[in-house]
């Protein structure tokens, strides 16, 4: 495989890893606060539809972005209501919301545009267009790094860089701020937070809201940057891959970055079976590449690559008890 092909694959790796990364960090905040969320998929989908539709109607991608975040937040709110306020089963709530999203998005898109649940293609300012980083062209000449910087690093939509920036930010918030301390505490032992006079419900809703926000970004990226419009079930299981990445990363922001890049890389490879074949010298069935992230996650879950210990209070609704 020549260097250009590699660059090209890394390039699409970054593109494809971005929604995973945003969703993964989203899940990270929720689960660190003790709320399991398998509804990432649904939130992304809702956001994708909302942003796609609104961006088309208003012609402004920014308004679309807000709409996407709004939709995702709405779903997050329901999840919070069910799993925090009414202490329902968080997993079931997640499953339900995924169904809801996959159905509602098509219904709404269809009733708005009558195009079989699609939103019309977005053009111009209704989309996030590639931004070229400074010196990208100037440095292109420089061997190795030049093309790398130009092809892989530069020339992505703004949201890609936002996603990357979210990683250190998340780490800092979790480990260096009061909010972070309380968030981690509420995920480990809510009673400790409660008796310390801090509202468990408040903290968890805050966490779920952040999840909504980040999923909103992820969904908007799908519809307005990676693609030019929303299409039925366009997230295609990315929410679950993000979940897998989260476990793979053992609920840590920086590790999440690597996990998502890895899974993004698999997706990029799945697009180029020809390359894979050229490299490994045997025909690798595409389904195998598709399944790889899931297989790896299972291996991690099995504790063969270190044990993945979720937050102690994860999944259980908080009931006051002594």
């Amino acid at each position, binding site marked *: 495989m020549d260097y250009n092909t590699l660059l090209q694959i890394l390039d699409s790796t970054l593109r494809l890893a971005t929604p995973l990364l945003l969703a993964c960090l989203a899940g990270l905040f929720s689960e660190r606060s003790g709320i399991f969320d398998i509804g990432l998929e649904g939130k992304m989908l809702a956001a994708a539809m909302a942003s796609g539709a609104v961006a088309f109607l208003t012609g402004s991608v920014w308004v679309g972005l807000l709409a996407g975040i709004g939709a995702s937040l709405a779903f997050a709110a329901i999840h919070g209501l069910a799993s925090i306020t009414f202490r329902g089963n968080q997993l079931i709530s997640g499953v339900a919301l995924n169904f809801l999203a996959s159905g509602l998005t098509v219904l709404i898109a269809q009733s708005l545009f009558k195009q079989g649940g699609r939103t019309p293609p977005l053009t111009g300012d209704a989309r996030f267009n590639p931004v070229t980083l400074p010196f990208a062209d100037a440095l292109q000449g420089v061997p190795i790094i030049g093309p790398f910087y130009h092809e892989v690093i530069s020339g992505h939509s703004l949201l890609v860089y936002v996603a990357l920036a979210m990683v250190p930010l998340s780490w800092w918030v979790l480990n260096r*701020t009061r909010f972070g301390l309380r968030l981690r505490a509420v995920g480990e*032992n809510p009673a400790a937070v409660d008796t310390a006079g801090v509202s468990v419900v408040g903290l968890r809703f805050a966490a779920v809201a952040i999840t909504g926000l980040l999923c909103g970004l992820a969904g908007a990226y799908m519809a307005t940057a990676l693609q030019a419009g929303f299409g039925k079930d366009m997230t295609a299981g990315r929410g679950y891959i993000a979940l897998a990445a989260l476990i793979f990363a053992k609920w840590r922001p920086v590790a999440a970055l690597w996990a998502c890049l890895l899974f993004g890389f698999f997706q990029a490879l799945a697009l180029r079976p020809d390359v894979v074949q050229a490299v490994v010298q045997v025909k690798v069935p595409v389904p195998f590449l598709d399944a790889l992230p899931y297989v790896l996650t299972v291996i991690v879950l099995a504790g063969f690559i270190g044990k993945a210990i979720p937050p102690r209070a994860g999944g259980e609704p908080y009931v006051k008890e002594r």
Partner: protein
Amino acid sequence: MAADGTYAIELKGISKAFGPVQANKDINIAVPRGTIHGIIGENGAGKSTLMSILYGFYKADAGQIFIGGKLTPIPDSQSAIRAGIGMVFQHFKLVQNFTVLENVILGAEDGPLLNTSLAKARQVLESLSRDYELDVDPDALIEDLSVGHQQRVEILKALYRQADILILDEPTGVLTPAEADHLFRILKGLKEQGKTIILITHKLREIMEATDNVSVMRRGTMVATVKTAETSPEQLAELMVGRKVLLEVEKKPARPGDVVLRVEDLRVRDEHKVERLKGVSFEIRAGEILGIAGVAGNGQSELLAALGGMMRATGKVTLKGQDLPLSGRGSDGQSRRRAGIAHVPEDRHHYGLILDFTAWENVAFGYFNAPEYQKNALFMDNKALRQDTARKMQKYDVRPPLPDLAAKNFSGGNQQKIVVAREMEQNPDLLLVGQPTRGVDIGAIEFIHNQIVALRDAGKAVLLVSVELDEIMSLSDRIAVMFDGRIMGFRDPDRTDERELGLMMAGMAGHGEAA
């Protein structure tokens, strides 16, 4: 009452119901500033509920709270903390994988960023630990600390928030006598500083030693508040239960037969591969009660678990000469029961019962393979099971005697009676009993103690594990003291006292002289 006549706390007409349960009924209590005030009462009498209301953890259905003489509504813990109230709960509220420092500042941070708060807290902790013998390593992880130290962290949390009213809910249940003494020294120190302390406990001895006044609760009502100096343990016990109770069990001298259980060099590792039982050897004869004294967490639980088939172990154990497998096939609870071992577990809620199951389903718990409960090769005989349950509830006076009632709807004591009935009615060769009277009120204690003695007199062997020294002293024919996974020594209850046992429980003295 108090020197300066004003009260630190006054509760007026506090009531609280949990659905059908009236946990607190029109409670009135006044605590003078700068005193240690004891509260005693049966399990479920409403002590913790009352304190939780004072701490804003529960909202009272009715009643008023006065702090320092002025009406102070306490809707949540936040306002309780602001009112200068700190609470150390029965079960600690610490984040296991946080450091002491992080736990202390949690919720009391100075700014949105941590580093400043941490720096300040570090200094405060140093001075506090100097003033009150509250020394703990600020950077240690909670999960690495002993219970005693964890409790100190809880107290530090309260003091860090400038609490001048400190509530402790059954603080000594998990402490060695030494640790307990240390705690009471700390409390006295705090009292000197003018802080007010409320102490909930079941141990009359502690009340008599540490408190200035004591309030007694029964079934959700406040029955009396008296000066400690002017009362006696007997009187308090009577107030608690509402009738005379014998604090001592009377039993005939034991007539030990031949050896039933022989344990040699028993070793157990927990799931973290830590050795919890470090080579224990002893034997129990028919018609004998061997009491295991010791502070919770020194290997007694593992001993019961290993013998009961709940944990795999190494060493040699024989029951009536038969070898008992300690790991692999035949080392599970079922095989143990078949071998003739019955087991009243330490924690009925976690082990002894399925709270969502009905009483009759619980009576089959562990014995679902018993022939008398089978209709045929395929199906169980649920009808026979119900009848059998009704009989046992009759005999053990379980209230209410309804086989189809869910276990969770029985009271603590009655839940325990169901477990005891189930295990004793198997008429085993060896009975393992852990904390038989934990979470059980004095009335039920009497009954259960008599049952255990009766079983002994019927020529059975009994292994009794309890953290209550009084219980060990009064029931056992021989006492073994455990510390750090080893047996420190054997004693004859008539030829030892709580001091000696306490020292041995703390790991001091103790030579293996069998009694």
